[in-house]
């Protein structure tokens, strides 16, 4: 590893560390999982211990899109617009069986999984997932952010 690579990898770990503990989440809440999201975010299970407690209700200031609950075909363009308007770098968590795969609603109205609309980083199963599962999913996302190479736009491409 040449000297320069050593420098950038050390810098990448520092950037990864910085990003993973300051996730500003945009809670895109629609359905029943929202109730479990409230429990996960509030005092009892406290998502804030992981640095992800601050909810930003504008995609301009959020870097984690937390899609919570069922996304129907009527809501699909809204989700796509909100995802597009988010700042880079951004991550997406599919929270609950309906967001992961359409869940128990396999019919004309529900999008069978939001990975058909937006690229998803972490899938949290459960209908609704217990708060512990939510925190575990968040930790998995943080590991992913830590390992994520930074695209330096010059030199090597990721």
């Amino acid at each position, binding site marked *: 590893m040449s000297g320069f690579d050593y420098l950038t990898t050390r810098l990448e770990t520092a950037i990864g560390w910085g990003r993973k503990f300051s996730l500003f989440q945009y809670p*895109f809440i629609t*359905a029943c999982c929202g109730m479990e999201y*409230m429990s996960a975010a509030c005092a009892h299970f406290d998502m804030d211990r992981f640095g992800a407690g601050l909810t930003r209700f504008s995609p301009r200031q959020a870097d984690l899109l937390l899609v919570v609950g069922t996304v129907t075909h009527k809501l699909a363009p809204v989700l796509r617009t909100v995802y597009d308007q988010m700042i880079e770098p951004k991550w997406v968590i599919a929270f609950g069986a309906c967001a992961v795969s359409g869940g128990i609603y396999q019919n004309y*109205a529900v999008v069978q999984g939001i990975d058909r609309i937006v690229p998803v980083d972490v899938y949290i199963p459960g209908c609704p997932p217990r708060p512990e599962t939510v925190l575990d999913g968040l930790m998995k996302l943080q590991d992913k952010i830590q390992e994520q190479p930074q695209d330096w736009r010059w030199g090597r491409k990721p």
Partner: protein
Amino acid sequence: MEPTTRIQREARPESMLLNMGPSHPAMHGTIRVMLELDAERILSAEVEVGYLHRGFEKTCENKTWFNLLPYTDRLNYVSPLINNLGYAMTMEKMLGLTVPERAQLIRVLMGEMSRVSDHLTCLAAMAMECGAFTVFLYMMKAREFLWEAIEFTAGARMTTSYIRIGGVRADLHPDWRGAVATAVKETRKVLKDVSGLLDGNSIFLGRTRDVGILSKEDALSYGWTGPCLRSTGIPYDVRKAHPYLLYDRLDFEVPVGDRGDNYDRYSVRMREMEQSLRLLEQISALIPDMAPLAGGPAVEPAEAIRRSRRQRVEGPVALSPNLEGSEMDRLAGLMAAGGVGVPPKESTYTTMEGLISHFLFFMDGKGIRPPKGDVYFSVEGGNGEVGFYIVSDGTDRPYRLHLRAPCFHIVAALEQLVRGRLVADVIPTFGSMNMIGGELDR
């Protein structure tokens, strides 16, 4: 930019059109309110719903009577047990079943706990949207205790599917009394704190007093029921008007507001929680303790299978959802007879008839088959009268299943309530309605 909505066509050219769209913290993610504004004053509003229309009624037409129970949890997902109760009681009315006494007691206990958690969630969201974040945290803490008490017995915190057609799935957890008692104590403490924080709070009063007023006649004309109707002064409560389960034997009042504004909706829900806590205490006193398990130590399922390969296994098998031992002898108190409930699982390990009956219950065309005809029955839900209108054609699938959603009618009045008010008044008015997407759009 061709006008697709009514508000775009009818708006004055110089007024500003604002989207309080689906993805908005105060709109609970599933409603789009389009406002025509003159500076801060709302000239007219148009509400667009349907963002959480998940095809519940169409899905039910393709599921058997027993399999569609989990869908009823996700209707009003803040008080799921009350939807279960509504569906189960409508089916029992159609099948002409009488539910055993103990199952009815457990149903009232679970229903009231679910109602308190419904009001807690609604008021927590309403207070947070008016800026009182502390109240949100306090009420979520109280709700955790309630959900824990529910989870002890039903196995799930929220989507329980615990109240079944003909009774309940399992008996209460052995130390359910402790859980319910702590839940009631904690909720009372939180209610005292919150009323201290909000009742006299000038900011909260300024945002909710005389805001979003609806007269009695308009409330009836919109078909309002539940706490919102009672906030206008009409004491209509399905538990008193058409008593079901044991509500006629229990003593509780129906709190009523006087002006029908946001503050009254808030205070009616607070007082109603107090009544529900009183009901919980009365019911806890009424429910007798469980009879201890008769017979020797029960056999583990794996052991029962191994033995059953050589000869018939006599004796109970230790198997039940809350792993408290054999459920066969407790079934009489929990589930009505007549092949409506799921046969006990342990009999599938020990007897051939048990295996066949358990298998048959879930086979196509076999399970529960009510007579042809239609039926309507309603219970008092968190938002109002939750009614199920079911048409059956004698097969094992409903021909038509329609839910009478209380918050569908309440949100229909939103356009009239916010006209002429300021933009900031939309939030508490909408918060006090407790719109639940799953129930509104079905």
